[in-house]
């Protein structure tokens, strides 16, 4: 792991820790999504730094991270899969395909990507606010919290961040 990766990883771990605390405290869905999205964005950027080149400044990246992970050499993919809780690389590959709609929804919920729609920070639409994040029920959070695939994604994110040093 190079120094840039280490710095982005530290930020990702800190945001994940805050997500966990907010969830325990019963915070509004918007805050949970905000910190979960930010933690995955930092994780993605920490990973992209493995090439030694700076990632783009955009918020997107979590799906790209998942794809880049699967592009690793087969020998490396074996231990990466195990580190992330999958018995075999094929299991990780299949799961990534299935969870991808949720992963896209999470990366695209950042205000800059949300196209003046539902986002975890600002009332929307900007010109004539009709919704407030703090009181909004986010279908994405309902999926993450109440559906098996969503809960698995949160567990995966936690493992991917906490065990980043294994595969960085």
């Amino acid at each position, binding site marked *: 792991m190079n120094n840039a990766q280490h710095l982005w990883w530290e930020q990702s771990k800190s945001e994940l820790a805050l997500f966990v605390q907010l969830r325990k405290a019963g915070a509004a869905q918007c805050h949970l999504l905000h910190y979960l999205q930010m933690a995955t964005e930092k994780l993605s950027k920490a990973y992209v730094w493995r*090439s030694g080149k700076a990632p*783009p400044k955009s918020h997107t990246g979590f*799906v*790209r991270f998942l*794809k*880049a992970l699967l592009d690793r*050499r087969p020998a490396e993919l074996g231990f990466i899969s195990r580190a992330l809780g999958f018995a075999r690389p094929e299991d990780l*590959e299949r799961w990534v395909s299935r969870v991808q709609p949720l992963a896209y929804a999470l990366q695209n919920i950042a205000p800059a990507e949300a196209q003046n729609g539902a986002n975890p920070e600002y009332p929307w639409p900007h010109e004539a606010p009709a919704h407030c994040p703090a009181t909004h029920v986010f279908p994405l959070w309902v999926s993450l919290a109440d559906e098996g695939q969503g809960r698995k994604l949160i567990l995966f994110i936690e493992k991917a961040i906490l065990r980043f040093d294994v595969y960085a």
Partner: protein
Amino acid sequence: MPSTFDRDAMAKWYAGRHLGTDSGVEEIHFLPRESPPTEIRFVEINRLIPETTDLEPIDFGVDIGGSDAHTLLVLDVTPAQWEAIRAGRLPLPSGWTLDGSETIGRR
């Protein structure tokens, strides 16, 4: 994955994986011309990314070090951005060209 580095074969392998795991990707364009011999350049047309996404290729960090070390650079674009690139209204990254490109789509 091919056992030794063959750029064309490796490009097809990566493209197959990306099309297989990412339903947002509609088509991949492999741009071998004017790229270094160990560099694979993709333009991936993705219907699930926002228009605001930067037009900046990402190094996937696929195979660093070793005798088969190579680079995979992916430029994610929306369908509208792809049309603008083809029409010459949106530039590709410096040094990239569509001349001699190969299209890899879903079967």
